[in-house]
């Protein structure tokens, strides 16, 4: 979508550098091993056993049912190193502060943010619709009089307007200030209102699988077990726990190297990116279907009917992604209670994936 905009190249070296880490942990580099230099052996051996990934713990606060990261550097890191979280006042990356500074005339004009580009495109679209409406009104008038419409030139002009590409180079940003904005400014400085919110599955992955975060609730830091308890809820763990099912799938894809993010805007559970939202479009959309070997009622409740499937598959088709139905088989309660730890619990679940794709016989004849 965005790559039709002139003057923007996703594959610039700046991008490569900014997003060089896949996760907020980094692989280590071992020193060079030179066969004829014994010193390098010693250094190598030392490094082999001591070196690791650089980790600065990221601080997450749990309040009002939200997992919040508010330090700008940590927000940046979570975004750039694996695309975790979402700015609450942004489409994805937390860019509200920059955007608002510019809107209020506080900052310098840099690149347009994704939100601004979207707004501009919608503006252009409105112009086109207005012109088309005019044309159609004229046509309708003639039709009533029983004439065939002669507006060939006008039609072309309207079409041009429709197909016009945005050229962001020449666009000047206009400031737009409302009464409400006064509460954002303290001594002429913009309050950093935006924070990043993480999904429960993201938080648990960062803690349980990567160990790069510290989650605090009411001032105290939660252990992995306490966090697990918080996320799976009170009242005893059951095999059909919604968080568990979501997490199994999230972990399954994240640990396979996919960048997994929420798929809600397309009516699915997850989107899988080869890298992440600013670099590649999502390739797969995941719909999770919990299932059981023994509980047929559970299967019936969780199954999707073909009208729902058809809806989702069309939406996913419209945005040129592939729909994956990820079935998760839940274990028996007996096995669940026997499990020793969280890892044991998670490994009781089974997964199977099916690609669900509209098939057009007419186009599959040879």
């Amino acid at each position, binding site marked *: 979508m965005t790559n039709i905009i002139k003057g923007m190249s996703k594959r610039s070296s700046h991008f490569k550098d900014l997003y060089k880490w896949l996760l907020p942990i980094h692989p280590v580099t071992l020193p060079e091993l030179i066969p004829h230099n014994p010193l390098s052996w010693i250094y190598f051996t030392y490094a082999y056993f001591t070196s690791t990934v650089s980790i600065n713990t990221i601080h997450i606060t749990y309040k*009002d*049912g*939200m997992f919040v990261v508010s330090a700008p550097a940590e927000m940046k890191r979570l975004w750039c190193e694996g695309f975790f*979280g*979402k*700015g*609450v*006042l*942004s489409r994805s990356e937390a860019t*509200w502060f920059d955007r*608002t500074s510019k809107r209020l005339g506080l900052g310098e004009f840099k690149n347009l943010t994704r*939100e601004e580009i979207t707004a501009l495109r919608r503006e252009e679209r409105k112009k086109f*619709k207005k012109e088309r*409406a005019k044309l159609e009104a004229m046509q309708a008038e003639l039709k009533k009089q029983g004439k065939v419409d002669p507006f060939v030139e006008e039609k072309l002009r309207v079409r041009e307007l429709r197909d016009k590409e945005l050229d962001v180079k020449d666009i000047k940003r206009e400031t*737009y200030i*409302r*009464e*409400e904005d006064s509460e*954002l400014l303290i001594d002429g400085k913009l309050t950093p*209102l935006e924070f990043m*919110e*993480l*999904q*429960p599955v*993201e938080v648990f992955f960062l803690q349980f699988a990567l160990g790069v975060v510290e989650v605090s609730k009411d001032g105290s830091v939660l252990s992995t077990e306490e966090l697990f308890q918080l996320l799976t809820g009170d009242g005893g763990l059951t095999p059909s726990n919604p968080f568990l099912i979501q997490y199994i799938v999230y972990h399954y894809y994240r640990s396979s190297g996919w960048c997994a*993010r*929420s798929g*809600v*805007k397309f009516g699915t559970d997850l989107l899988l990116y080869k890298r992440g939202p600013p670099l590649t479009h999502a390739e797969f959309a995941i719909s999770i279907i919990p299932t059981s070997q023994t509980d047929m009622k559970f299967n019936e409740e969780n199954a999707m009917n073909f009208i729902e499937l058809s809806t989702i598959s069309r939406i996913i088709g419209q945005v040129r992604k592939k729909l994956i139905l990820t079935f998760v088989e839940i274990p028996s309660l007996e096995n669940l209670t026997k499990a020793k730890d969280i890892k044991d619990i998670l490994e009781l679940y089974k997964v199977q994936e099916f690609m669900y794709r509209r098939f057009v016989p007419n186009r599959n004849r040879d």
Partner: protein
Amino acid sequence: MNKETLVSQVKQNLSFYNLWSDITEIQTTSFTFLQGKPKDPLTVQSTIDSTTDGISSELTKEQEQGQIPYELVYPIRLDSKLSPRDIHQLFKELEDFKGFKIEKIIAGILNDDSTIVYYNIYNGLVKPRRN
């Protein structure tokens, strides 16, 4: 997440992401709504269901004067249940509160990743937009 957080998150999103003005909370018997003015007027629909012919004169007057009409947003979490009965109740309470017929409520649906999507819910059948 409690209701206040939900409402305040949607309110903040309307105010500082979508740049709506003049946002106030409306508390009916069982629901909280947000009322405000968008930066630009939202596309107007023509209603064709005969049961919803009584569009509020207040709104029409505003439109005639070229003003941006107030919109009503109902904040709701993605994992909450919503039945036709609930929607009926939303319109009913809002109409009782306002004292006139409500044509449209915007559902502000909040996901657990803080994404908020807005969908119009009309009372009755409407014609699609001419894209």
